[in-house]
């Protein structure tokens, strides 16, 4: 079994893994970071989105060994420990952008990446288009769209 090393939420981690281990399995099972979820097996739902070297990826279609030497950010590391919530997390709560909460970590990580790529002023059309890779069955996306627009604006000041 190959050894894999990466930095996850600011901490260096090393482990021996079966070569077929997916990044999401590594995060959930080896590191017990269970905030990243698995909602499908065809890379469609986006519940597993994390940031790999600052870019959103679906951790269900990334092998753990592909993250060798990379920096991984998961929902657990988005806000500083014991610090205030990230503005995007706060916006999801304020705008009721979640119900069951299962898709939420992936939504939030996707939203933060969307701001990185598209800026702080996001219109409804852009947000809806950019959410193509994230499924939510509870909210009808209405409040997720509102939350992302507000979170994006709040990130400007943060």
């Amino acid at each position, binding site marked *: 079994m190959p050894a894999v090393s990466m930095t996850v939420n600011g901490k260096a981690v090393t482990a021996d893994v*079966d070569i*077929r281990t997916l990044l999401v399995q590594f995060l*959930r*099972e080896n590191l*017990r*970071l*269970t*905030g*990243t*979820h*698995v*909602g*499908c*097996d*065809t890379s*469609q*739902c986006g*519940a597993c989105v994390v940031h790999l070297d600052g870019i959103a990826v679906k951790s269900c279609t990334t092998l753990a060994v592909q993250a060798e030497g990379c920096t991984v950010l*998961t*929902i*657990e590391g*988005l*806000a500083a420990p014991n610090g205030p*919530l990230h503005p995007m*997390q*706060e916006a*999801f*709560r*304020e705008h*009721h952008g*979640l*119900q*069951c*909460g*299962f*898709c*939420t*970590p992936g939504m*939030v990580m996707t939203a933060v990446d969307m701001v990185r790529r598209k800026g702080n002023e996001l219109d*409804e059309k852009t*947000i*809806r*288009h950019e*959410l*193509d890779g*994230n*499924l*939510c*069955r*509870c*909210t*009808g*996306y*209405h*409040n*997720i*769209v509102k939350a992302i627009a507000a979170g994006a604006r709040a990130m400007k000041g943060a």
Partner: protein
Amino acid sequence: MSATGIGAAVRRKEDLRFITGKGQYTDDISRPGETRAVFLRSPHAHAKIKRVDTKAAAAMPGVIAVLTGADLAQDKIGNLICGWMIHSKDGSPMKMAPHPAIAANKVCCVGDQVAVVIAETLAEGKDAAEKIKVDYEVLPAVVDAAKAQSAPAIHESAPKNTIYQWHLGDAKAVDAAIKSAKHVTRLDIVNNRLVPNAMEPRVAIAEYDSGTDNLTLWNTTQNPHVARLVISAFVGMAPEHKLRVIAPDVGGGFGSKIFIYPEEVVCLWAARLVGRPVKWTSDRSEAFVADAHGRDHITHAEMAFGEGGKITAIKVKTIANLGAYMSTFSSSVPTYLYATLLSGQYDIPAIYCEVDAVYTNTAPVDAYRGAGRPEATFVVERLVEVGAREEGMDPAELRRKNFIKTFPHQTPVIMNYDAGDYGASLKKALDLADVKGFDKRKRESERAGKLRGLGYSSYIEACGIAPSQAVGSLGCGVGLWESAEVRVNPTGSVEVLTGSHSHGQGHETTFAQLVSERLSIPIENVSVVHGDTDKVQFGMGTYGSRSGAVGMSAVVKALDKVEAKAKKVAAYMMEAAEGDIVFKDGKFTVAGTDKSVAWGDVTLNAYIAHKFAGSQLEPGLKEGAFYDPTNFTFPAGCHICEVEIDPETGNTEIVGWTAVDDFGTVVNPMIVEGQVHGGVAQGIGQALLESAIYNAEGQLVSGSFMDYTMPRAENLPSLKVDTTMTKCPSNPLGIKGCGEAGAIAAPAAVVNAITDAIGSEDLAMPATPPAVWAAIRKAAKMQKAA
């Protein structure tokens, strides 16, 4: 209204853990020594199992056990059951075929469990499952409800694949009304099969403690107590007091997590056999074939009209596809949750409905958000809309003419509507949707080469499920009350234990709002406990939009008792008569004096018990209650959908959505709006996108998110959501329920809008671009021919 009381848009208490990744869903739990279960599932829709050879699999690395249906039978593990008895019109009971948790003699649908591997790791389990050899003798399969009754029987006990032939209403009166009608509208309707697809797939973890003989099941369920009852009493896994069921955070249910499924039974059984915890996590591909599906009706419906558009009768014949086995509540969905709502919001003197339920070689079908009521609403609201068009009447006017205007109103199909103002929601919706400006918008669309249409859905539902005695008389195997316990701590903080279960609905917030308001304590001082049979004594769970109307009513009853007891304590503290104590704004006051004690003083005194003797009053402050509703509740409203269609591509864009709902008392408008959004999204999904498609051999060919079109953000519009209010008279808070309304209302509104735009009623759901394109062309061709 206080800032955290009833009616306030309080931000959700549960959100902090969800937005920080600290939620605890079942798959997030890992037990020491845990093993993994992998199911081998049938690739055939219908086949005899001639032989299952597990030798090679058992010899694979990491394999602890390979178990089959024969092993299950040998251990006398009982079959899964359907808990609602329906009798056919000839009086015979429904034909419930055996449903073993692992198939032993034959498989009846693709995905049926044939064997299970218990292994050290998931990968080892999957590798071993590859090595199980099964000899099948493939049998012909039937997937269509329409063909089921002429196909060879799937189960010996159900000739012609017919589970029951049920009816409700007065056939003679309906036939007479149709005969003498001025006009009759006739429609053939297919209500498409849907896959619920909660984002969290199902998971079960079972653990056996041989020291105490206790079994524990962590499970993605909407009703842990019902699961425990069925698994104990019917499956015979363990006595009820030796089985604990825990439903931690659950990632959406929509009905699909009500049912008792084979996998959780197998995990419990295997955990005891191997002496280690057993965990099964469904992947999405498994979920598509192993979760219960929804809808799947074929219907012929007729609506009779008299003078001036007066509806005089409805006649409905439906064939309901219940799939390969009868799931837990499947029998009730196309009967008492369906035909009883065929009066809609209208005063209709005569209604008759016949329903044949059939077996097919497809996944079992059971309740999915709305359960029966979306199907009923689709029938009624399509008939009304088409009737109006055929009679050249304004569809809103035709509805208004026929609305029930006085309450209570007894329909010809069991239900007694207690309160409502259907005209008010219609009027508000017409204004909000700017229906007056529609013609102008339509002309603008036409100039751009687009078709524009407007569709209404004035739906009604029966929620707050349900009075136990009433549902018992209709065949339900359980009572549908709810329980609550209010535990007050010495320092005055409160734990509310409820049998309702939240899987996204926000009970930790709304139930706390109720307590905060009633006791005038900060909402932070209230926690809500649910989803654990060891903590909550009993409960019936969450479905049928019942948590507010039934679950919160039980909390009210318990709070009444808490207040009564606290008044006694306060009376001893102030040396006053109990009858003179008034509780208001968090203070107990002796009426007519300025003598008062605060909530926290009273709760402390209830526990330190220095002011009264044991012979006078029991110490402590904890009360429980069971609330059994006296009627269903009847949320109703009007949704208006406006679409624009590109005739060149058939693509439908929803350009406007207005929802005006009467949910009675609204506890948290933010959460209620969220429920409407989600329901409407699922309804639009059914109308435009979603369809579970089996090919003729019984293979599910829309079995992944690549093929089954889940609504995505870009498919859905922004929604205008508002309410009107008539209080529900049958429960203490006046709540009607809001969870299912959107999914019930939406499909008819969408299809009414599209058919309005294209000028043809010949369109089935889902109205995909190719389907709409073909309908436009067919209509043009027929017009040309005529």
